């Protein structure tokens, strides 16, 4: 095995052919690939490993900082230094916890506004950028009631949809993945279109179906809602228009949309396990920022009356 022998070359050819055969089988299979069983078995086995690894890895920056405090502690200065660092670490963890609580608060607020029944989950693993696809793994799975094609959101808006589900984990295809196509509706009008993504660092592209539609910078989008509410429930905020491209009167109008969700720092998300009974329309969008109207400055006239006897 140490040298490039004839045996090694036979092995190389064998494994390359196996890989190509697997790719072909999986590619031909499409959505009902015969390898889906192997995939879910792998999720069942490796999902718990990822959960443990994520639990160890997430406070790793804290751990790196506190390594410096692992002195022998024989003298007072070292002891106090260590104590100080421990307190600093606690302070940081406290800030992290407060941030999480705020995220959960936002999520519950959004779910309440749209009357979505959600299951909360955290992102434990993210796909490598070199794989060219934008997917994340959540720490909730079929045991928590998750099924493929459920809508995933967070406190800011639409995150994506559930692609595959394991017993304790689920994989989400983000709305910024080029394979994601989300049906959307402009706020207050019934203009419909769909957005497609170009990765987490880029804005979404919007295509409106009606070439005559009027779309302006600052227009806000919510999901239109898919048939049977899968994969997207209606009314979830998606983003706002930052620029309009294309000319009116052409087949379709296109625009660039900045998503509400920051896809580069996803943590707490909610999976819609039960869609709302009625379309929440624009109820979930945050209130429009009030533009500062020029308030008339009151003119105060003070008449100084000389006090008697003053």
């Amino acid at each position: 095995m140490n040298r490039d022998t004839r045996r090694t070359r036979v092995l190389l050819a064998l494994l390359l052919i196996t890989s190509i055969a697997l790719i072909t089988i999986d590619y031909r299979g499409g959505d009902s690939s015969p390898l889906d069983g192997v995939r879910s078995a792998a999720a069942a086995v490796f999902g718990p490993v990822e959960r443990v690894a994520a639990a160890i890895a997430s406070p790793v920056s804290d751990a790196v900082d506190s390594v410096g405090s692992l002195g022998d502690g024989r003298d007072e200065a070292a002891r106090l230094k260590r104590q100080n660092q421990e307190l600093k670490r606690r302070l940081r963890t406290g800030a992290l916890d407060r941030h999480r609580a705020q995220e959960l608060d936002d999520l519950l607020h959004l779910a309440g506004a749209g009357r979505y029944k959600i299951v909360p989950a955290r992102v434990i693993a993210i796909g490598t950028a070199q794989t060219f696809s934008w997917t994340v793994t959540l720490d909730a799975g079929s045991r928590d009631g998750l099924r493929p094609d459920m809508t995933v959101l967070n406190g800011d808006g639409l995150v994506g949809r559930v692609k595959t589900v394991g017993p304790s984990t689920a994989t989400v295809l983000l709305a910024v993945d080029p394979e994601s196509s989300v049906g959307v509706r402009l706020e207050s009008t019934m203009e419909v279109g769909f957005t497609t993504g170009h990765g987490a660092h880029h804005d979404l592209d919007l295509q409106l179906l009606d070439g005559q539609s009027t779309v302006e910078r600052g227009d806000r989008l919510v999901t239109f809602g898919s048939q049977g509410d899968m994969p997207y429930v209606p009314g979830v905020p998606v983003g706002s228009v930052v620029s309009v491209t294309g000319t009116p009167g052409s087949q379709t109008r296109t625009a660039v949309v900045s998503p509400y969700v920051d896809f580069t720092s996803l943590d707490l998300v909610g999976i819609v396990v039960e869609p709302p009974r009625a379309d929440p329309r624009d109820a979930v969008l945050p209130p429009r920022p009030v533009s500062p109207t020029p308030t008339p400055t009151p003119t105060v006239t003070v008449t100084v009356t000389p006090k008697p006897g003053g």
Partner: protein
Amino acid sequence: MPPARAVLAVVLLTVALALQVTLMSRLPLPGATPDLLLLVVVALALAHGPGFGLVCGFGAGLAVDLVPPADHEVGRWALVLTLVGYLAGMARDQTRRSAFVPLVVVAVAGAGSVLAYAGVGALMDDPNVTWGAVRSLLPTAVVYDVVLSAFVLPAVLAVARRAEADQAAFA
């Protein structure tokens, strides 16, 4: 194949894969993700040669293709990493000549893996593989992998040699 080697390789690759998806891809870096798993495959190939390297590459690639959050065709990373393991193993004898050889191997593996994976995707009309995406990944992938290899390669090589020595002592 001595069992100590195989056991060690499985442990190292499992840990690398778990850290790859939970820690490496969370780092707020622009462009590519530092590919810890690729570096462990390269290190094992440099330690034990092309035969061992290609088996490690195939196993690691198949794992990446299957475990969540994978959403691409099974076999794509297996194909790429099998080749990486084999070719890195071929460079093993050259590493004794110069300390720069492993760095060159890592740089070529980093760039080659991105190009090969994208190439397979292009053959299948993968809509995610665009020239723009490849161009933004390529330079950062090489830089991150070379920097990370300064820590990973010596560590894995030292552990691998130590395991060999222990094996020899028992025999």
